C-alpha cells in the first residue's frame, strides 16, 4: 500500500506539472468559391477583381481568375461585359497571417462611369464553378459641402484647421469617410552630400473632438483630442437630417504635410454596404485570428450571393488643402 501511495503521488505531481496537451484537429472546410471585389466611385470607370477562395487549410493560396465572364447591369439593364485588362498587371502585395507574397493581378474593366443614385449589379460565371456569383450596390447621392474655412495659423502654425459643413439627408442612414491625402516628391541632401529622392503618397494624421467620430486617443494624454488618426468612418446617428459642421486639425509640422505640394481632404459618402464592409474589415484585421485570449473573431461583410467578396460604392469629393 505504501508503495502504491508513493507512486500515485509522484505520478500526480508529474502530470499536474504539464496538464496541457496539443493535438491536431479536423475542421471542415468550405469548397472554393468565386470572389468578386470592387469599389464603384462616380469619378472613375468601373473595375473589379475576380479571384477564387480556397479552403482554410488548403496548400494553395487564393488566386486571380483570368477567364471569368462578368456582366454589368445598371438599374437592371445590361450595360455590357466586363473584361480582364490583361495588358496591365498590378503587382499586388498579399498580406495575411504568415503570408506576404507579391504577384500580378489583373483587373476586369468596362468603360463606364457609375452615376449617383443608380444601382449596379455584376454577375460572374466561371467554368470551374457551378453557380453564378451576383452582387449589387447603389451609388450614394452627391453631397453639398459649404462654409469651407482653412486656418493655416492654428496652434501657432503647427496645425492647419479645416472647418466645413454639409447637410445630412434625413431620409436614410448615411455613412461618411474622411481621409487626408498627400502626394509629393522631394530631394534631400544627406550628410555626405548625396541627394535622395523621397516620394510620398499616402494618408496624413489629423485630430478632432467630433462626437460622431470614434474615440481613438487613449494614450496621448497631453493631446486634447478624442480622435487621432489618418482616416475616420462615421455615421449620421448623432446628426440625422441636420446641418453638420466638421472641424479637423491637421498636423503641419509633420513631413508628410510640410514637404508635400498637394494635400487633399477626401470626403466620401458611403453606401451601407460600404460602411459594413470597411468597418468589419477593420475589426477583422484588428481582432486577428481565433485565439483564446482574443475575443470572438469578426466576419468580414460580404454582399456576394453564391460567392464571397464585396461590391461596394462611394461618392467622393475633394477639398484641396494645399
Amino acid at each position, binding site marked *: 500500500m505504501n508503495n502504491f501511495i508513493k507512486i*500515485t*503521488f509522484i505520478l*500526480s505531481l508529474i*502530470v499536474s506539472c504539464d*496538464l*496541457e*496537451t496539443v493535438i491536431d*484537429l*479536423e*475542421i*471542415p*472546410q*468550405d469548397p*472554393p468559391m468565386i*470572389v468578386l*471585389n*470592387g*469599389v464603384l466611385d462616380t469619378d472613375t470607370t468601373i473595375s473589379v*477583381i475576380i*479571384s*477564387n*477562395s*480556397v*479552403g*482554410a*487549410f488548403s*496548400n494553395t*493560396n*487564393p488566386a486571380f481568375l483570368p477567364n471569368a465572364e462578368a456582366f454589368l447591369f445598371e438599374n437592371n439593364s445590361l450595360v455590357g461585359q466586363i473584361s480582364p485588362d490583361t495588358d496591365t498587371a498590378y*503587382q*499586388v*502585395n*498579399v498580406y*495575411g*497571417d*504568415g*503570408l506576404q507574397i507579391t504577384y500580378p*493581378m489583373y483587373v476586369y474593366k468596362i468603360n463606364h462611369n457609375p452615376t449617383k443614385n443608380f444601382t449596379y449589379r455584376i454577375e460572374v460565371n466561371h467554368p470551374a464553378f457551378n453557380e453564378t456569383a451576383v452582387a449589387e450596390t447603389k451609388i450614394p447621392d452627391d453631397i453639398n459641402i459649404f462654409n469651407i474655412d482653412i486656418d493655416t495659423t492654428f496652434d501657432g502654425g503647427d496645425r492647419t484647421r479645416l472647418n466645413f459643413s454639409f447637410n445630412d439627408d434625413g431620409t436614410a442612414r448615411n455613412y461618411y469617410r474622411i481621409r487626408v491625402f498627400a502626394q509629393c516628391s522631394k530631394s534631400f541632401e544627406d550628410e555626405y552630400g548625396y541627394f535622395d529622392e523621397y516620394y*510620398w*503618397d*499616402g494618408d496624413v494624421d489629423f485630430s478632432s473632438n467630433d462626437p460622431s467620430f470614434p474615440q481613438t486617443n*487613449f494614450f496621448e494624454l497631453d493631446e486634447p483630442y478624442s480622435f487621432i488618426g489618418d482616416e475616420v468612418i462615421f455615421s449620421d446617428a448623432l446628426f440625422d437630417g441636420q446641418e453638420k459642421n466638421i472641424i479637423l486639425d491637421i498636423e503641419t509640422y509633420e513631413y508628410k504635410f510640410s514637404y508635400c505640394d498637394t494635400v487633399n481632404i477626401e470626403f466620401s459618402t458611403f453606401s451601407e454596404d460600404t460602411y459594413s*464592409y470597411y468597418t468589419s*474589415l477593420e475589426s*477583422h484585421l484588428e*481582432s486577428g*485570428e*481565433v*485565439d*483564446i*485570449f*482574443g*475575443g*470572438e*473573431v*469578426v*466576419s*468580414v461583410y460580404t454582399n456576394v450571393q453564391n460567392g464571397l*467578396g*464585396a461590391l461596394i460604392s462611394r461618392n467622393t469629393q475633394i477639398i484641396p488643402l494645399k
Partner: protein
Amino acid sequence: MRAFFVIFLFLFHISTLAQKYTISGYASDFETGESIIGANIFSNDYSAGVSSNKYGFYSITLDEGVHVISFKFIGYETITKEFNLNKDIEFNAEFKLSNIVTDEVTVTGKANVVQRTETSVIEIPIQQIKSIPALMGEVDVLKAVQLLPGVQSSEGTSGFYVRGGSPDQNLILMDGVPVYNVSHIGGLFSVFNADAIKNVRLTKGGFPARYGGRLSSVLEIDMKDGNMKEYKADATVGLISSKLMIEGPIIKDKTSFIVAGRRTYIDLFVRPFMPNNTDLTLHFYDLNAKVNHRFSRKDRLFISAYAGDDIFAVDFTENFSNGSGFNEDTRLIAGLGYGNITSTIRWNHLFGDKLFSNTTLIYSKYQFNTGFGVESTLGTTLGNENYDIDFGYKSGIEDIGGRIDFDYTPNPNHDIKFGVSFTNHNFTPGQNDLSINVSYPPADTSNINISVDTTLFFSPQVKANEAFFYFEDNIKFTNRLKANIGVHFGIYNSLNFRSVVNQFSDTDISFEPRLSVRYLLSDTWSAKASYAKMRQNIHLLSNSSVGFPSDLWLPAVDAAPSQNSEQIAASINTELLNGEIEVSLEGYYKTMNNLITYEAGYSNLQSTESWENSIEIGGEGESYGLELFIQKQKGKTTGWIGYTLSWSNRKFDNINQGNWYPYKYDRRNDLSIVLNHKFNDKWDLGLTWVYGTGNAITFPRSTYFSTLQSGRNDNFYVWNIESYGDRNSVRLPSYHRLDFGVNRHSQKKNYKGTWSFGAYNLYNRKNPFFAYLAYQNTRRVAKQVSLFPIIPSVSYRIQF
C-alpha cells in the same frame, strides 16, 4: 388578476371551516442536532402532509380529534406518534439514523419526484457529492451539479449553463447570499468546501415566486449549522490542498458553531525550487464560519460568513553593478487576485404555531485586482535616479441587502410563502490606474522629475437598487391535484454617478407570474407542468472565448436593459421497484430577450473601450429540449443517469448578419452516468462517465482576397481574409471521460479514517479545451488544446 384572488380566497375559506389545531416543531438529526430539510410529516388517517422548511420547521393543522402522525425522512427511522388534538401541540422530531439504512448508501431523503409539486428541481445530498470521483481528489459541489441533466459545462471551468442560459443567469446562494465568482484557479475548482455544506438544491425551471433576479437557475447551497451535541472534526490531506472542519456545541442544544478552512499549497512545494531573487505566491483558500443560537423555541439566530481568495504574485529583484560607479537595483512585482466575501445574519421567529418568519441581512462582495509595478534605482556618478511605475486594474460588485420571508401553513391544503427583499448593488465595472514617479539627482539638470498619478479608461461606479415582493401558495386542490401559484413583483432602478448630479433612471417594475401544477395519475405516476416569467437586472460581460475572473458584472441600464425570460416545462414522473428508482422525463421551452454580449472582435484584456461602447444589446435567445433523469436512491448501488437532448440559439442584430446562430454551449446530446457501490463497511467505489456533443465555435472555413487597397507610392495590396461562415458553425470533437474513485474506510478506537484513491479521465481522452490555428511545414493547420490527461489522486480523511 382579480379572478385569481377570488378563487384563492374561496378555496382558502372552504378549507378553514372546521375547528382545527396545530402540531408544530422542528425536524432535526438526533445525533448532531442539524435541522433536517424536507422531512415529510403526514397524518395517516387524514391523508394530509407537509414538509419541513429549510430551517427544519414544520406546522400541520388538523381537525380536532385523535391523529396518528408519521415523521419520515429517508435514511432515518420513521417516527410515528399518536396525538390527541384538542389544543395546539409542540413536537420536535429528532430523527435517528436507521439501522437498516445505515448499512446502505444514503442518497436522498426528500419528497419523491412523483409527489413533489415543483418541476425541474434536483437535490443532491452532500454525501452523494463526496462519493463522486473528483479532479485531483478535490470534492467539488459544482462539478457534481454539472453532471445533472439540463446542465452543461466546459472542461476546466466551474461555470455551468442551465437550459441554454449563460453562467450569469444562475443565482448561486450560499446560506441565502449571492456568490458572484464561484471559481478558484480560473475554474478548476469551485469555492464551495464540501466539508462545510449540508445541502445542495438546483432549480432549473418552474421557479416558485420566492426566487427572482436570474433567468436560468437557482442553486441553493446551505452550510451546516454545527453540531449541537458534541465536538467533531474532519480533516483531509490531499495532493493540492488540505482541509479542516471543526464543529460543536458552545452551549449544548442551544448554541453551536462550525469552522471550515481549505488552502492549496502548490506554492509551498514550488518555492524551494525558485531562485533566491524570486518570491512566488500561488494559492487559494476558503474559510467558512457559522454560529447559531436558539434563544427559545420561537427565536433562533444564525450568523455565517465566507471568505475566499485566489492569489498569484511574483516578486523579482535584481542587482547589477559594473564596478565603476554604476549600479542598478530593480524590483518587478506582478500580481493577480480575486475573491469573495459573504456574510449573513438570519433570525428565525415563530408567530404562533403557523407563521414562521426568517429575517436575513446579507453582504456579498466580489473583487478582481491585477497589477504590476517596477521599482528601479540607478546609481550614477551624479547620484541616484529612481523609477517607480505601477499599473493596476480592478473590477467588482458589492451587495448589501435584507429580506423577510414568511411561511404560513393554515391547514394541510395550503402552504403560503410571502416576503419582501431589498438589495443595493454597487458595481465597479473596471478601472485602470497608472502611477509614474521618476526622480533624478539634483545635480542632473538635463532631466526633470516626473510624477503622474491618474486613472485611465475609467468606467464609473454604478449603484442599483433592487427590491421585490412575492406571494405563493402551494395548494392541494384534491389528493391528486396540487399547484404552486405565485407572483413576484420586482422594482429596480440604477443610480449613475457619471454626472455631478445623481440621476435616477426610470424605475423599472416587473410582474412575474409563476405556476407549477402536479397531477397524480396513480400512486406511482404523476404529470407536472410549469410556467415561469423571470427578470434579471444585472449582466455579466464575458469574453466569449473563455471565462475569466476579469469578466465584468454590470447593472441593467438604459443602454443595456434588464434581461427577461419565459419558460414552460412539462414532465412525467414515476418510481419503480418500490420507490428505489425514480424516473422523470421533462421537456422545456425557454425564450430570453435583452441579452448582451461583447461586440465581435472585442477582448476585455486587450481593448481600451468602455463597456458601454463595446457591447451588442437586445439579443434574443431560445432553448428547448428533453431531459431524462433516472435516479436510484436506495441499496448498495446508487447513482443516476441523466440525458439531455437540447437546442440553444442566440440572435443579435449585429452578429451573424442578424441571423440566429447556435450558442457556444448548444449541446445536442449530453449524458452523465454516476454510480456508487458500497461493497462493505470498508470499501466503496464511485464511477462517473460523461459524454457531450462538442462545443460550437467559430473557425476559419476558407480564405480569400479583400478589395484592392492602394498604399504609399502606388503600391497595391490586398488582405488575405478568413471566411468564418455562420457564427459557431463548427463543432469541436465530442467530450467524454471516465472518472474512477475508491474509498477504504477504517474505524479506529478514536477516529474514522478514509483513504481515497481515484483517477480523473481514466482512459486519457484528449478532450478539447479550445482550438487555434498553427503552421506545420508552412501549411496551416487547426490544433486543439486539451487540459487534463489521466490524473490520479490520493487523499486521506480523518473524522473524530
